[in-house]
């Protein structure tokens, strides 16, 4: 089972698709949680996910905006998609009949 931050990272990387790399994922997580995401937490979690085979990373091209430095590009693997889906399903099931979840669902409909 994934951890909360692992799920946030996988979701941000999946949403970004081919444009997923460290700084962009970090912005994605910060945008979703409205909280600061540290570089330490991001890269150590990314390493853990890669060790579990849930993401794959490689060095991307340098850009002038980054002072000519490379990016760490990220792609979610098939196994990563399965794990993220399992986590989401578990959270959805656990949230059924819970006040804040039903209020939220009404608000969205």
């Amino acid at each position, binding site marked *: 089972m994934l951890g909360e931050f692992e799920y946030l990272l996988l979701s941000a990387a999946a949403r970004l698709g081919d444009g997923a790399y460290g700084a962009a994922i970090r912005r994605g997580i910060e945008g979703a949680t409205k909280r600061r995401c*540290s*570089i330490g937490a991001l*890269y*150590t979690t990314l390493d853990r996910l890669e060790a579990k085979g849930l993401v794959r*990373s490689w*060095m991307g091209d340098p850009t002038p905006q*980054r*002072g000519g430095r490379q990016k760490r590009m990220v*792609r979610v693997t098939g196994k990563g998609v399965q794990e993220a889906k399992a986590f989401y399903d578990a959270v959805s099931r656990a949230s059924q009949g819970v006040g804040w979840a039903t209020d939220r669902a009404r608000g969205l409909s």
Partner: protein
Amino acid sequence: MMQFGWWLLSFLARALEPPERDVVLGDLAESGAGFGLAMGDLLGLIVRRQVGLWMSWRPWLALFGVCGLAGLSLSRIVFRLNVDLYKRYAAHYATDLTDRQELAFFLCMAGALLVWSWTSGFVLGSLSGRAVWLTWSLFYFVVLNSAWARFVLDGNIILRNPLTHEAPLDSLQGTLRFLMAATLPRTIAALLFLFPALFGAFVGVRSRTLAVPHTYLIGSVNVALALLTTWATGWYDPAHLPAGWPGVPWPVRLLPFLLVSWPAAYLLACTIPMGSHPKDQTRSDMREP
């Protein structure tokens, strides 16, 4: 961010592996974060990486094996060489050895100290990787201070300021003198340890392993020096001990030299292939899939 701020961040980022260093500095540049936030982010990652290094057995072996076992033995050798050099060339004690015998003894001890320091430094760097700044600093303090600290703790040496006769920590000046004595390499033997140990650690961090012929050479030289120093100390001891003292038996003299030679044995053991080295297992092979 100011130029100095970037310089400082780039300097600190050297604690990270080169590919990650580049990525992290790029992320910080892209985020446009101020110096404080960028520094906090970078230090947070460095601390996590340093803690992560200690999840492996390698830095622990460096800590207990090299800093502890080899360091304590090297410290005794450094201390012994300092005392013998002082007695012969500063205090001019008669040792009943010929000049040629004394020269052979000092050359043997100095050569052994050089080789053992390099070998220990190399193995320390090889095992510690990016944790070498911590393990090497501890190694340095152990070698420089543990032998005489033992004599102080046993009450055989009493530390006093030579000018004021105060205990070393009784005044600010005394404390500073004490700290300088404990941290700076101020003797020939300390310098014979310092430079090879530093160089060995530098090579060890970079290359991690030696070529097989070099390993055999280092192993042979270590064994030869252990035997030579055992022989030379036996030859030296009875001459300057009071009459009737038989001197230390050779197995007892050999033991510290064997302990200090264990890093060479470790290098020899590593030449037997036992699977891939952690350095070969990069976090990702950094190629686009």
